[in-house]
């Protein structure tokens, strides 16, 4: 099972959960498309500027291979301090 996490604004519209990635969802682009198909609000939000995608606690850019062993986190724009 892959672990999906959502932070900030995105946590309002998607719940953290463990999922069994369907065949074909083998990279982060495919994961975004798969989640977007069920949630048009997420589909818009995930494409906004300032988000980050984190796989196994490391920031990734562009399509990145994923499997059921991974933790994948969607980060809305951060604001600490």
């Amino acid at each position: 099972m892959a672990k999906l996490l959502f932070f900030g604004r995105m946590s309002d519209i998607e719940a953290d959960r463990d999922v069994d990635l369907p065949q074909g969802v083998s990279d982060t682009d495919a994961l975004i498309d798969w989640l977007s198909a069920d949630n048009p609000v997420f589909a818009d939000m995930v494409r906004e500027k300032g988000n980050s995608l984190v796989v196994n606690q490391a920031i990734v850019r562009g399509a990145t291979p994923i499997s059921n062993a991974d933790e994948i986190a969607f980060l809305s724009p951060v604001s600490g301090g």
Partner: protein
Amino acid sequence: MTCAIDIQISETPFDPEAAQAGFRKTLSKSGAVAAFTGVVRGHAGNDQVETLELSHYPGFTEKQISAICKTAAERWPLEALLVIHRVGVMSPSEPIVLVAAASAHRRAAFEAADYLMDYLKSDAAFWKKETRAGEAHWIEPRAEDYADKARWAQSDA
């Protein structure tokens, strides 16, 4: 010089002055301590702030702050750095963040504390949800936060 780095994410209220007193006791080589304390604001424009809820990404956030502190320790001659960041639900005037930097040199202490705050504001994995008049609003970085951070890149060349 090896810089002692102490990073704490606190689910419960912390006392920034007691933390600074403890920090100062650990020092043996520093004549200069610069510190920044951030507290929950009471107003946002004309609206009264009811609560601020801060969340983080456990593990990842600490790793990020640790990396930022190590970068600061390479850039300035520091004896010690302390970062305490609250998470959870807070009320106005409760402390959110404390950054303290100790050095033999005044400028190094000031610049390191300033640098860490800029990075915490714009880079560290924290999210803020402010409730005003019963409505929750996500707070995202402002253009000036990115501009503050950009100051440091200019002299990286």
